[in-house]
């Protein structure tokens, strides 16, 4: 059965999981930017762990049944988390394949999802249900 938090609980859950997703995206950005300074295995493990952490955050929030009136916020936040997880998966694939040529494009995508997540986290912290970010 999905958990059904009240409004306050939804805020807490959404902030927490969006923050975890943001941390995973930030880790991948740092790892890709520094790929020349990282050993191959380190980069691979780092991107794989970021993907795992991001996917877990997205799955956890998606499995929450939003409270009445929070459906728009739920859709917006979970979509952002799922989009970020998709990018993290692409980063992991590229790192394990050693496809360094794709890193600049992946970095751009990561920065884009990071900006969106930052807006969401900020709006949740300001009391919004996440629908307006």
């Amino acid at each position, binding site marked *: 059965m999905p958990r059904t938090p009240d409004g306050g609980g939804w805020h807490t859950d959404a902030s927490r999981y969006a923050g*975890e997703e943001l941390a995973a995206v*930030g*880790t991948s950005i740092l790892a890709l930017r520094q790929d020349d300074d*990282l050993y*191959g295995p*380190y980069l691979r493990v780092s991107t794989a762990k970021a993907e795992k952490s991001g996917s877990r955050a997205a799955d956890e929030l998606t499995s929450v049944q939003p409270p009445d009136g929070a459906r728009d916020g739920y859709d917006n936040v979970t979509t952002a988390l799922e989009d970020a997880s998709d990018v993290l998966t692409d980063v992991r694939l590229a790192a394990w394949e050693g496809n360094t040529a794709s890193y600049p494009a992946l970095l751009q995508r990561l920065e884009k999802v990071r900006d969106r997540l930052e807006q969401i986290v900020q709006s949740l912290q300001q009391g919004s249900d996440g629908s307006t970010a």
Partner: protein
Amino acid sequence: MKRVLSMALGILTAIGGFVDIGDLVTNAQAGARFGLSLTWATVAGVVGICVFAEMSGRIAAVSGRATFDLVRERLGPGMGLVNLLGSMGVSLLTYVAEIGGVALAVELISSVDYMLLFPIVGVVVWLVLWRASFSFIENALGLLGLALGVFVVALFKLGPDWSHLAHQAVTVGKPSDESWPTWSYYAVALFGAAMTPFEVFFFSSGGVEERWSAKDIPLMRSNVIIGFPLGGMLSISIAACAALVLGPLDISVSSLDQVGLPIAVTLGKLGLGIALLGFVAATFGAACETGLSVGYSIAQYFGWQWGKLVRTDVAARFHAVLLGASLVALGLLATAADPVTITELSVVFSTIALPLTYFPILVVANDRDYMGTHVNGPLLNALGVFFLVVVTVVAVAAVPLMIWTHMGS
């Protein structure tokens, strides 16, 4: 000259052996989220462990007997058993975390999943506990742990605004997006990470292994008073590097690879390689120390032969405990429990066991029958009582804070 070299070696191994997986993870987590605003908790923990490590080392040097040996005799088997269960349980949990930590560190070098590595790591640790000499465990691994000094170098290379960092460190405050309960939880965790009970067991039992006498007390004190605070500086450097590199990117630390990223940013591959050596040495050394601490505490309580200087067949029950503890550790890790979560739990539960560990040491260090003229002076007693009150408050607050904050998340 020999004495100076011996002192230098003791100090260096005390520095290198101070940081374990709990320090690595907790300091990076706290630094990334709270900057240096929780430095006071690490400093308090370092002063606290210096106070009690000095007492337990002095007890070993004067009486020639280790902590649990005297606890049972002085406080009786009942109280001794409570003490044993609390302290040994936490040391065992820490042992699990350290073996998992070694596997995570090797995973970063090999990109082989840690679930495939931890059984090998567990067997290697057990073989070292069984076959290697005490001096190898203490000195070689402690010296290799000095590689973590790369965090100090990275901190200087980052060229931070020192006045801003110093202001953070001396001001009681938190970032606006963090809550006070979470801030308190991490304060408790940092305090617990610095005051882990196994360090005192290993230190005092090591003193007995090395046959310290009263004339070794100055040497022991130099290890504690110089080595431990410098080890604490490594912990603070890890927190500072995380604060400067990970904090601005909103990276909250949940895995070991994130701890090393600031080194790659500042010092490149060479620095990262040294940091990885430090990760492996620190966690491997701590795994050996915690494993031995489990064996020491049980064998000392039951009055069995124990130690690395005793032949294996003579200390068979001690070695059977080491084997049993290793099997329990591997069994727990085989459940796929996240080693970082185990580390966080071990740090918090360490705080609960702190009064059980340190109260008996304070009692024995005041007993003239054991200590003769080397009983605690008024200053040490005042510090001991103060920290006993602090660790009791921390022990009571630890679990409610852990539940309230969902382990600081």
